[in-house]
């Protein structure tokens, strides 16, 4: 191999292929195996813990949302414009039949439940209380299906039963009413008159939500519609207060809410999703989730300091080697990238191990759940909904992406300082060390 083969490459800029840089970064990471493992495990463990915690938070919240939707007015509600801000018995959708056809024509995948909501005074010889009369079209209505298993006495009213009512145990106590008792339901009309209908208690439920147990009177839609007729409604047009729409795929909410808004919104009708229907619940969930985000923030701080500590120590130990590399012709940019890659690899490894730990725990708890009944007792009701005693961990794909991205960004941020430190090494000073 003679000198003729020397200087064959035209002088240019130093090139360090990514593969070589990755190999160097990977090996550098394992120079101090124990230190890297300790950092890796601590970050991964913290991250795994954050995954589990957020899984449970999301699981609990989703459970509450699902219950709120079932007990409430569905994923999407179509009702008179202004009803949410100012509900009144005389605000109703006079031509329910035509609106039902319009909704059906849009091909919404799910069930569409016509409902009538009225403010009434419920009276027995013992007492009178304000109540919300909810007329349901079928026993398959989501709210009916949710409450049927929670009957503690009697039975559910039959379809077309224009006298049967089902009340909560709270109201039953106030009215001193048992199954079979007569309850007079009275409501004022817009014209200032009053109207009344007689109901008979068929069953008593305990929904676990005091607001519902103390306030709700459930009846066949036919009984409720008698009150609308008293307001002047034409029964042949099937007047209703609203349509509660339950989607087969809750993830399609945004799409269908938009389609319904576009297709139905007018001066008199509005389509609202559950977030718009229950803004207080949304706010509550947001505040409740803040605790988990603070925990996540602490984990991110742990990640940043863990990586900065490990990589910076490694950089300081290698000052002389960096000087040598600079002397040999490696540019500052390459050193910067090399050390940055080390942080990146450490972060990615930590995320991978963290996902293995946290993801494994999440999968376990997603199937097995955790019984928090003993911890919370009957105290699982919040904001007009409740949490089931067994909470399952839930992580949406968006949440997985979000968590991974957050850790990834934290990793990138933590790589900056050690990388700059390495790039600032000057050969002469470094070689003197």
């Amino acid at each position: 191999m003679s000198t003729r083969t020397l200087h064959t490459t035209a002088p240019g800029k130093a090139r360090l292929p990514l593969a070589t840089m990755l190999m160097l970064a990977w090996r550098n990471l394992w120079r101090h195996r124990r230190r890297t493992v300790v950092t890796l495990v601590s970050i991964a463990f913290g991250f795994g813990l954050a995954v589990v915690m957020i899984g449970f938070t999301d699981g609990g919240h989703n459970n509450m949302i699902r219950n709120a939707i079932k007990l409430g007015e569905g994923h999407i509600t179509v009702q008179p414009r202004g009803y949410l801000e100012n509900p009144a018995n005389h605000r109703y959708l006079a031509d329910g039949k035509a609106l039902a056809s319009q909704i059906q024509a849009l091909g919404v995948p799910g069930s569409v439940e016509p409902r009538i909501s009225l403010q009434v005074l419920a009276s027995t010889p013992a007492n009178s209380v304000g109540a919300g009369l909810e007329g349901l079209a079928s026993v398959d209505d989501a709210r009916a299906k949710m409450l049927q298993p929670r009957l503690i006495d009697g039975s559910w009213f039959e379809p077309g039963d224009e006298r049967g009512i089902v009340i909560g145990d709270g109201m039953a106590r106030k009215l001193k009413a048992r199954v079979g008792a007569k309850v007079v339901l009275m409501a004022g009309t817009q014209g200032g008159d009053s109207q009344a209908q007689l109901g008979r208690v068929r069953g008593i439920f305990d929904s676990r939500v005091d607001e519902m147990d103390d306030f709700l009177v459930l009846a066949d839609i036919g009984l409720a519609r008698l009150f609308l007729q008293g307001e002047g409604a034409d029964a042949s047009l099937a007047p209703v207060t609203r349509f509660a729409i339950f989607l087969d795929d809750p993830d399609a909410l945004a799409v269908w809410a938009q389609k319904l808004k576009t297709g139905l919104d007018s001066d008199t009708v509005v389509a609202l999703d559950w977030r718009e229907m229950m803004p207080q619940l949304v706010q509550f969930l947001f505040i409740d989730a803040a605790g988990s985000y603070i925990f996540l923030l602490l984990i991110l701080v742990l990640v940043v300091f863990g990586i900065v500590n490990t990589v910076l120590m490694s950089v300081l130990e290698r000052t002389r080697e960096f000087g040598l590399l600079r002397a040999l012709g490696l540019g500052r940019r390459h050193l910067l990238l090399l050390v940055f890659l080390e942080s990146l690899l450490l972060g990615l490894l930590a995320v991978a191990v963290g996902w293995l730990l946290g993801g494994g725990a999440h999968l376990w708890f997603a199937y097995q759940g955790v019984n928090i009944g003993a911890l919370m007792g009957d105290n699982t009701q919040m904001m007009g909904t409740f949490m089931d005693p067994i909470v399952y961990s839930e992580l949406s794909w968006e949440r997985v992406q979000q968590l991974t991205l957050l850790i990834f960004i934290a990793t990138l941020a933590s790589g900056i300082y050690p990388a700059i430190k390495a790039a600032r090494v000057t050969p002469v000073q470094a070689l003197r060390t």
Partner: protein
Amino acid sequence: MQLLQVQGIGKRYRQGELEVRALADVELTVTEGEFAALVGPSGSGKTTLLNIIGGLDAPSEGKVLVNGKEITAMPEAVLSSFRLFELGFIFQAYNLVAVLTALENVELVMVLQGRPERERRERARHYLELVGLGKVMDRRPSALSGGQQQRVAVARALAAGPRLVLADEPTANLDSENATALLDIMYKLSKEEKTTFLFSTHDARVMERAQRIITLRDGRIESDERREQSSHARALA
């Protein structure tokens, strides 16, 4: 052909309140293929001069031309590339990248130069065999003796095809046997490859092989002696 021209180089730096003059009015010319030694007592400016010639340090005054190019006027990025393609370095110790094998260490500079994988692999093997490390090229520095590590550094410096190799006391940390072997290898390769070597040294064995001995004292060139090859060098040649 004049490969290296050092013109009026001076170097001053501050040490607390004191201004220290490390080099003053150094004039030096080295022709291609020379095997030259910079000698002098500690603190005479040998390493500082070598660092300035290698573009690792900037002079306070004067200029350095390598192969006609003024390196003292080059921006840092250009200088870095210049070192990569034109110069070879051998330091006193800790010459190698710890996480790379001997073969990978020799290849590294050629990787940076952008040479094709096959070419750099062949050259790396060739030079490692020349320095007698054919059987340990897959070992990392921690599994090599000090002498073997310095031989890897020599192989790396030469495999990259530099015009000028700057060696800062390369034998200072070696025992007599290893030092002699290493110098013999460098001397032999310099003759075969026509590569120019400039040593900073205290080592009599280097001086014995050098064709030229430049003596520095208090930052100035005290003497510049060209001489006939020693019997040892003649024997090697």
